[in-house]
């Protein structure tokens, strides 16, 4: 598939932004009292968010999961709003109600982030149903991890989406760990994409560290979906560099395994390809990195300078009145 220079630049930029954003979080969450709650990062998995979102139109919808930062940044969510939300500040994109785990950015059609493993899939089916009902030429993408494929909701959602030929893309970001469980310890199925056969839908395995491969698979599946051809299950094979959360010491992840996957980092993979083709120059990349550094610093400053919500604001936003 031909991918335009603009798309490649977009993917490289969003991967660099996600990486810088999460590297900042790795440092910030070590400082006692700065960031509340858990810190769950997708460092090393950025090609999935970048490749998926680059293949979508502005009216498509994404539903994501607890490891969502790279999805949301790739989708175009404002770093300031995300960072302030992660800090628990009033200026956060959800006024401090969601924290890092449930970030919802409806402005960019990232309608919901659910931390209940596998729960995004039935919701994505509902959004895709609405798209089909209104005869839109749009699709819904649901991003979930390999652990989610063990949930009942995964199977109910795939079955219904296939039955009704809904325009939904189920994207499994297989990072090889579900909590502390290695992939081989939670299922005997070699490829999660193979489960597509059980629901009479298309299934595809792609290199989840190759943004271009992810982009191509998603662009094709999206085309099929909006043409009425039904859903696709795409499995992006990648790897979780960090622990389940930042407090996880990863004693169950072999060090040489982590090191080997770091060698397959998705950023140089795309960057070096673009350099080799003359699509970007080293100074342009430095400029891009400097800009991103400034964006993330600005987001952190914004979050730090923002006020916390007043305690009684906890009572707001339960119902539409």
């Amino acid at each position, binding site marked *: 598939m031909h991918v335009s220079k603009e798309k490649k630049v977009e993917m490289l930029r969003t991967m660099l932004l996600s990486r810088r954003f999460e590297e900042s979080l790795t440092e910030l969450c070590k400082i006692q009292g700065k960031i509340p709650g858990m810190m769950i990062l997708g460092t090393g998995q950025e090609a999935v968010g970048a490749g998926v979102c680059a293949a979508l139109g502005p009216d498509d919808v994404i539903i994501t999961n607890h490891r969502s930062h790279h999805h949301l940044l790739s989708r175009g969510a404002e770093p300031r709003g995300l960072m302030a939300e992660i800090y628990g500040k009033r200026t956060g994109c959800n006024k401090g109600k969601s924290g890092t785990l449930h970030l919802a950015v409806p402005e960019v059609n990232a*309608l919901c982030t*659910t931390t209940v493993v596998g729960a995004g899939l039935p919701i994505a089916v509902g959004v895709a149903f609405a798209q089909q009902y209104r005869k839109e030429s749009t699709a819904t993408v649901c991003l979930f991890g390999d652990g989610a494929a063990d949930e009942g909701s995964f199977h109910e*959602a795939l079955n219904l989406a296939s039955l009704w030929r809904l325009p939904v893309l189920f994207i499994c970001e297989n990072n090889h760990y579900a909590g502390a469980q290695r992939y081989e310890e939670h299922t005997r199925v070699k490829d999660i994409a193979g489960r597509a056969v059980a629901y009479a839908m298309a299934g595809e395995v792609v290199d989840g560290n190759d943004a271009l491969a992810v982009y191509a698979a998603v662009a094709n599946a999206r085309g099929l979906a909006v043409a009425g051809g039904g859903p696709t299950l795409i499995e992006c094979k990648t790897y979780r560099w960090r622990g389940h959360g930042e407090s996880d010491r990863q004693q169950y992840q072999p060090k040489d395994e982590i090191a080997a996957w770091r060698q397959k980092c998705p950023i140089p993979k795309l960057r070096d390809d673009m350099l080799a083709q003359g699509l970007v120059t080293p100074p342009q990349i430095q400029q891009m990195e400097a800009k991103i550094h400034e964006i993330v610093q600005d987001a952190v400053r914004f979050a730090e300078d923002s006020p916390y919500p007043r305690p009684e604001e906890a009572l707001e936003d339960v119902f539409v009145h």
Partner: protein
Amino acid sequence: MQQLGMGQAVNQALREEMMRDPGVFVAGEGVGVSIMDNPMLPTAGLLRDFGAARVKDTPVSEAAIAGLAVGAAAAGLRPVVEIMFNPFFTLASDMIVNHAAKLRYLSGGKSSFPLVVRIKSGAGFGAGSQHSHNLEAWLAHCPGLKVVMPSTPADAKGLLKSAIRDENPVVFIEDMTLYFAPGPVPDGEYLTPIGKADVKRQGETVTVVTWSKMLGVALKAADRLSQEGVELEVVDLRTLAPLDKETVLSSVRKTGRLVVLHEATRTGGFAGEVSAVVMEEAFSCLKAPLRRVTGPDIPVPASPPLERFYIPDEEKLIAAIKEIL
């Protein structure tokens, strides 16, 4: 005035709202083609009259049915989905409790989820505990949900129409025995407000707070006790969440005596909540300890004498009332 069973009243509400708003659709197990071919049932004839695009028979997949509602509502439609029996709600509960109820809050008020989950409920069919377990107290315990449990066909119609137009998720629980008990339903368009209890009978001696099928038990007991000079005031909550405290409290302030009656089991039942509100806010008006009349803390049994023992009746209610006179 027309005489309709509650199922027919629900059916009329669905039809009117589907005609009014093209974003309203109905989905669930057997909502189109049903194993129960009975015109008294709520979704009878909808498939014929509205077509398969808007009346969606689903696979036996309660999580997917509820997820369908959450996602479609987030995307701007107005889903009305059906859970076939109240105990099957447990299979859909993650979508309702963790998602429908919470996602607006988690979005900081940016998103809304205007959906209705209709649940068929109630004992009395000999179907046993996995089909006949009333779980309204679980639902009322979840912030972000409105919980409606009508007792008359007229209320069911007006409340369901309000539920469909509500911007929030509403769980609408229908006792199936009421499908087959016709009652008057006003002609023409009307809405019944959610969150407003209704005094179904006025009286001076004892307040009975109840809802759903148990209203009939309360009214029968009221007729009998009236012959003995005991006048019950029967408050039909209609909505459990949000609870209309004022109507309950003003009745208790008048009578000074309270019995709460529900079919669901006792421990953790919603009678506890009603009682606590009265103790906190009208304790000084009480002339006697309050009483709860509920199902016992057992799964609903199947055999007719066992099931009859489970469901509260006038005898049990009258006995409880006489204890506090």
